């Protein structure tokens, strides 16, 4: 014990000596107060508050680092240019002033680790219709002298043909835009974002350009210690959350303390491009996905995306299995009764689409025709609401692809779908065309269970506002739908090259997903068969023991679980039980429980039947010898009964394997669900289902061979 203590002291002493030797200046530096220059006013990085105390991201970071590293700073708001010059002349030790790291500046300064990422954005008046640089032609644009934003504006001035007017400070520049003298201004993104948060009547309309990093600077070759301390301190405050707190304080709650660090399970649809779909790498992308991830990132929480399908997601939310749903979900009054919605994040509307070569051009031509809709969508509601008026009848599908297919094959003459979804699908090659204007325009919202997860809802709203202000929101939308509604930029996510559309190509490309789906299917099957067999044998035996009560229990269990459709049982266990008990059930467990009960009931029935099929004289003979019931059962009846049951067991195993596909309803990523997801992305329904079917057949063939082998071996 003593030795250990000495050892530790020894090491500590050694390290301290080493440390002192390496940085001789440390001792003197500690006594010293560093003089740090900064701008006069560059909110949110540095500005005087009401008490005339300097605050801001730069100031707070500098102070936090000084505290962390044990040195003192004297911050001098001398103005950007003066600060830079004073460092050059050696009057100040360093400068922190929202100073972008540029090659030019690197010649004269040594920069610390970049501490903030920034970019130039364009802002316009709140009511302005200007959305892009193109619209600036011949117009006047306000700039602030000597800023990176001004440099950027000047660099594109010629190309877009606008004039500039320069101001010495930001407020005057903003004023020039709000009064309408200028149509736009260019500013660093965080500065602009902060200004808008403070009530400026401007909006950001472009995504950050010319992105760069802010850095802390010292004179080239000087003050190395200070620079290293800054780097070390920055690392510490970034690690311990101080950094996030500081940035959040000025730019919106990046780390929302209500949700920070928490993980929320978010349900979504399997197939709803461009809002949610799996990309080539089987990662879920789309407007909803990017949005919720960006908000989570901004607010400091984590999300676990569960693409369980729209209906399952909504039901799981209702039963409390998941925390939220973002799934192109229209905000309706009916839904408001059960869910609390965020501020709308997208405006949609319902359109009608027909086959590319269809002659139908209006609703009135639908009379007597068949129209395809997707269950539970607002497009379906809309179609149903006008069904009578236009005299068509409807057929419903569970996912979009099947619905489109029904129209392209000519089974139905038209389908109804949300506008962005339809547009996206057509871009992806679905042979349909939109022939109506968006009707019933409805806002999409993020939903939580009514009265629950209010912190998450608030975080979503606040994050959404921040993303809108920062332009991230528009970027996301543009990524999938194009900047202009006519642009087709949406090739990014789903465009597969044509060689990956052959069978071989599809198999190669989706190998990983298919195999992991197969693995899940096999696991489900094996685990379920195991438990179902145990359950089935127990219940079956209860049915033949000489006890009226046990026989009754057995009959009731068999009746109940054999009588209930597997789908209903799965949904009941997965969404119903949690509603009753308030405890969540993992989907896999719910799946296994479902199959255990359902397949187990069938097994129980044939176990009972198999035993009853054994000649009763066998039992009488065994009992007559003095063998007790249990022994007679084990040694005489069961061996004969099992031989009768084996074909039924094999049959049941195969049925169980196939029945796992039904569990895709509760979002289990087994083979069928995997197929659905792949098709959602590439719309190659026929080929992918062929591959999936072949995989099932291969497994079932193997299982049959195995069973036959077992059967041969047990035959006498």
């Amino acid at each position: 014990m003593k030795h250990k203590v000495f050892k530790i002291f020894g090491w500590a002493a050694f390290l301290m000596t080493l440390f002192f030797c390496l940085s001789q200046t440390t001792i003197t530096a500690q006594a010293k107060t560093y003089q740090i220059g900064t701008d006069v006013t560059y909110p949110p990085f540095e500005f005087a508050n009401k008490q005339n105390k300097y605050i801001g991201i730069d100031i707070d970071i500098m102070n936090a680092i000084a505290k962390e590293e044990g040195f003192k700073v004297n911050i001098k708001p001398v103005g950007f240019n003066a600060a830079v010059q004073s460092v050059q002349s050696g009057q100040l030790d360093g400068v922190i002033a929202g100073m972008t790291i540029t090659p030019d500046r690197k010649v004269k300064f040594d920069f610390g680790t970049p501490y903030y990422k920034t970019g130039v954005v364009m802002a316009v008046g709140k009511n302005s219709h200007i959305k892009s640089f193109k619209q600036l032609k011949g117009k006047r644009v306000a700039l602030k002298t000597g800023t990176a934003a001004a440099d950027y504006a000047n660099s594109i001035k010629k190309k877009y043909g606008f004039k500039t007017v320069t101001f010495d400070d930001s407020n005057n520049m903003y004023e020039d835009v709000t009064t309408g003298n200028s149509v736009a201004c260019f500013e660093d993104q965080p500065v602009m974002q902060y200004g808008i948060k403070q009530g400026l009547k401007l909006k950001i309309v472009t995504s950050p350009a010319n992105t760069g990093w802010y850095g802390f600077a010292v004179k080239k070759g000087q003050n190395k210690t200070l620079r290293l301390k800054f780097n070390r301190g920055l690392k510490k405050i970034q690690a311990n959350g101080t950094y996030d707190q500081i940035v959040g304080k000025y730019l919106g709650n990046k780390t929302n303390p209500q949700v920070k660090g928490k993980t929320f399970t978010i349900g979504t649809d399997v197939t709803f491009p461009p809002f949610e779909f799996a990309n080539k790498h089987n990662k879920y992308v789309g407007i909803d996905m990017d949005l919720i991830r960006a908000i989570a990132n901004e607010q400091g929480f984590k999300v676990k995306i569960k693409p369980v399908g729209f209906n399952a997601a909504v039901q799981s939310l209702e039963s409390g299995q998941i925390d939220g749903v973002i799934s192109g979900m229209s905000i309706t009054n009916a839904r408001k009764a059960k869910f609390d919605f965020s501020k709308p994040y997208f405006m949609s509307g319902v359109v009608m689409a027909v086959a590319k070569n269809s002659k139908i051009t209006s609703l009135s031509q639908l009379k007597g025709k068949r129209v395809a809709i997707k269950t539970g969508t607002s497009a379906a509601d809309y179609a149903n609401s006008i069904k009578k008026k236009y005299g068509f009848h409807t057929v419903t599908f569970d996912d979009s692809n099947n619905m489109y297919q029904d129209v392209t094959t000519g089974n139905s003459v038209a389908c109804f779908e949300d506008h962005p979804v339809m547009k996206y699908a057509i871009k992806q090659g679905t042979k349909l065309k939109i022939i109506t204007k968006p009707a019933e325009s409805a806002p999409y919202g993020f939903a939580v269970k009514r009265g629950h997860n209010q912190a998450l809802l608030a975080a979503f709203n606040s994050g959404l506002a921040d993303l809108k202000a920062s332009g991230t929101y528009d970027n996301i939308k543009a990524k999938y739908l194009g900047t202009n509604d006519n642009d087709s930029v949406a090739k990014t996510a789903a465009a597969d090259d044509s060689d990956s559309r052959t069978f071989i190509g599809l198999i190669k490309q989706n190998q990983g997903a298919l195999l992991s789906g197969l693995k899940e299917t096999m696991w489900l099957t094996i685990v379920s068969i195991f438990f179902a067999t145990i359950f089935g044998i127990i219940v079956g035996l209860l049915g033949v023991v000489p006890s009226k009560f046990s026989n009754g229990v057995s009959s009731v269990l068999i009746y109940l679980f054999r009588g209930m459709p597997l789908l209903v049982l799965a949904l009941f266990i997965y969404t119903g039980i949690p509603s009753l008990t308030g405890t969540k059930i993992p989907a896999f467990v719910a799946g296994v429980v479902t199959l255990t009960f359902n397949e187990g009931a069938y097994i129980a029935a044939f176990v009972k039947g198999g035993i009853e099929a054994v000649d009763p004289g066998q039992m009488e003979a065994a009992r007559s010898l003095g063998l007790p019931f249990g022994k007679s059962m084990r040694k005489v009846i069961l061996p004969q009964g099992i031989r009768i049951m084996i074909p039924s067991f094999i049959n049941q195993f195969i049925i169980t394997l196939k029945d796992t596909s039904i569990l895709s309803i509760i979002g289990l990523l087994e083979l069928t669900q995997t197929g659905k997801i792949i098709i959602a992305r590439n719309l190659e329904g026929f080929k992918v289902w062929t591959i999936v079917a072949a995989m099932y057949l291969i497994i079932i063939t193997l299982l049959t061979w195995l069973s036959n082998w077992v059967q041969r071996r047990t035959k006498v």
Partner: protein
Amino acid sequence: MSEKLKVTNLVKTFGTNEVLKGINLTVNQNEVVVIIGPSGSGKSTLLRALNRLEEPTSGSIVINNVDIASKGVDIDTVRENIGMVFQHFNLFSNLSVGENIMLAPVELKKETKEQAANQAKQLLKTVGLEEKFDATVQSLSGGQQQRVAIARALAMDPDIMLFDEPTSALDPEMVGDVLAVMKDLAKKGMTMVVVTHEMGFAKEVADRVVFVDNGQILEQGTPEQVFEHPKNSRLQDFLNKILNV
């Protein structure tokens, strides 16, 4: 002569159907009792009640001074002492001939596997089937199966043997072998209750013949009394019928 088995006022009903209507019957040590009577008269039910394959509705069945009809009795132990031979043999079809005979002694820990195997071979010899130890049940003829069934019952070393029409499911040429085994048993002093229509066997082996009709014992006596001088008219009818066949 000591009393081995005493049935008093035995009544058995199936639902509303009274099948045994108050049977009184005593069987003495080493006695061979043959029960005869028309089909459906309750002979099997009576025999099955004797080892409680049928639960008596009322009355008592005392075997070795124990009332086996009473609730508290451990019926499995009682059955170890009562051998039962069925009309349809009921050999365990999942087991070999040897295993059929060995099952109960081994399972009930009366004997080790080896002892049981030796005993089984011994018993097979006495029923004339020593070469069939490893044979499957399915490969045997009816007569052979019934002899194995008798050997199986004897393996538990019972002191009473019950036979329910042991030869009536057999082809005529097989009957002799089975009856020979039974005669042999009787000679050795086994207490036996036999339901049969083999009048030759009854005359030769039985100490007493009991006539059951409609759930009642109508007459009993030595074979000579019953067969040569039947008093009851229904017995006379019955004998006329079977002897004229």
